[in-house]
């Protein structure tokens, strides 16, 4: 197999605009970005609260969250699978083998990253601006919105780390989604399938498209934070 065949396959995918292929790309983006959005809505405030609050067992929670950043996707997938299976506790919802199941699994993977990195960012900022914030009457949890805003660029990187984790993983979405053609097939599960069919140029072509998408999203986020930095002075 030559390298040209890979680029040719990637090029054909993009130029051909095959509806099946576009569906796969949109589903990947939909699942991953929704998971990151949900993880951000929960993780940013929670991480900031964890940075400011003092309570017994806090250190243990921080260590656990840091460790969960290394949670194997296949384990998260299996846990969600057992929960959502018809024979599991949430079986009656009928969510197994749906995009929703994939989003749930990815939230579990992304959330620890968002919380742990947010906690670190906000704790550092709080150490730096504690006196100033206190002088304007912002203390405790009321300082969270200000600190989140001030740490927005570092936090954007935390979200991008979460996005990278979600968009690159295959273990969890394969188990809970089932890789159903036209319904739960994502870029990564399609790559797995094409590899097993021995169509390696197509598999790598898909990989190339996925990498380009990730690159584009990172570029947009970087550009956005640059523009934001200019306005915020």
């Amino acid at each position, binding site marked *: 197999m030559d390298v040209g065949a890979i680029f040719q396959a990637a090029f054909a995918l993009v130029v051909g605009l095959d509806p099946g292929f576009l569906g796969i790309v949109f589903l990947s983006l939909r699942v991953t970005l929704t998971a990151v959005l949900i993880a951000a809505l929960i993780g940013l405030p929670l991480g900031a609260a964890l940075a400011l609050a003092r309570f017994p067992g806090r250190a243990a929670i921080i260590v656990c969250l840091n460790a969960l950043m290394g949670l194997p996707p296949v384990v998260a997938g299996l846990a969600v699978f057992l929960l959502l299976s*018809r024979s599991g506790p949430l079986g009656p919802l009928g969510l*197994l083998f749906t995009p929703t199941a994939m989003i749930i699994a990815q939230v579990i993977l992304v959330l620890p990253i968002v919380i742990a990195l947010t906690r670190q960012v906000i704790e550092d900022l709080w150490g730096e601006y504690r006196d100033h914030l206190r002088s304007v009457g912002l203390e405790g949890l009321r300082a969270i919105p200000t600190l989140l805003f001030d740490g927005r660029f570092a936090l954007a990187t935390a979200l991008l780390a979460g996005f990278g984790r979600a968009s690159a993983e295959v273990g969890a979405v394969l188990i809970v989604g089932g890789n159903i053609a036209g319904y739960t097939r994502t870029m990564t599960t399609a790559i797995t399938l094409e590899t097993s069919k021995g169509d390696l140029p197509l598999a790598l072509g898909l990989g190339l498209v996925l990498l380009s998408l990730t690159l584009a999203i990172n570029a947009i986020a970087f550009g956005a934070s640059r523009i934001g930095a200019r306005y915020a002075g």
Partner: protein
Amino acid sequence: MIALPRRSVLAAGLFLGLTGVALAQAPAAPSGERFITVASTTSTQDSGLFNHILPLFKAKTGIEVRVISQGTGQALDTARRGDADVVFVHARAQELKFVEEGFSTERRPVMYNDFVLIGPKADPAGVAGTKDIVAALKTIQEKAAPFVSRGDKSGTHAAELNLWKVAGIDIAAQKGPWYREIGQGMGAALNTSGAMGAYVLSDRATWISFKNRGDLVISVEGDKRLFNQYGVMSVNPAKHPHVKVNDGKLFADWLTSPEGQKAIADYKIDGQQLFFPNAGQAGA
């Protein structure tokens, strides 16, 4: 430098705003008012059979078929848990056990093809071109030639284990470093065999549609013991009340009807027929 809260438009928000864009542009998932979930094998999926027959079924009935492709053992377990409406697999003994356990009321034969022994062109065991699969396996074991086993409780794995047994070899006890269980699907096993120069048992459909053959060729074929039968079963609602018993049965009916059987026979790659319908055959 502390910014005022009313200016608190997070830069991260811009990134998240992309989510909205992506969501808005995402085509409505083909949620299909009517769909069934079918647990099937890697061979029916990887060979492209489903891509050929499912659109025909949908055009006729309006039912979308969502296929989860797994090894036969895993597919049966998926159905046992109630996560599929229909199973379409190839390991007769395991299927009959499934019926016996009450998870289905009826197993129906659908089609067959055959297994082939794939091996490297160099043929280290010297079995290429022979017709006796049992003798070939004995030779491979004697010469300790590399052999890749699926090792995943799939239909092909079950067939392979049975052939060792017929050859009088207790593979669990007599396997050496030459016998490599990879615990993966058919395509992955072929990829691995190609890379290691090993022999491997494959269903013919996956082999014909496989694109990364490298130095691999068919070593042994045409032995009656390499017969590979596929059967379909709809899941018994007595075990899982939520299963779509009517639509599931419609699919099983269609597969075994003259129309479904013709659709199966019509599927060809490079002029080669991959599966041979035999729904009417008693005892298949």
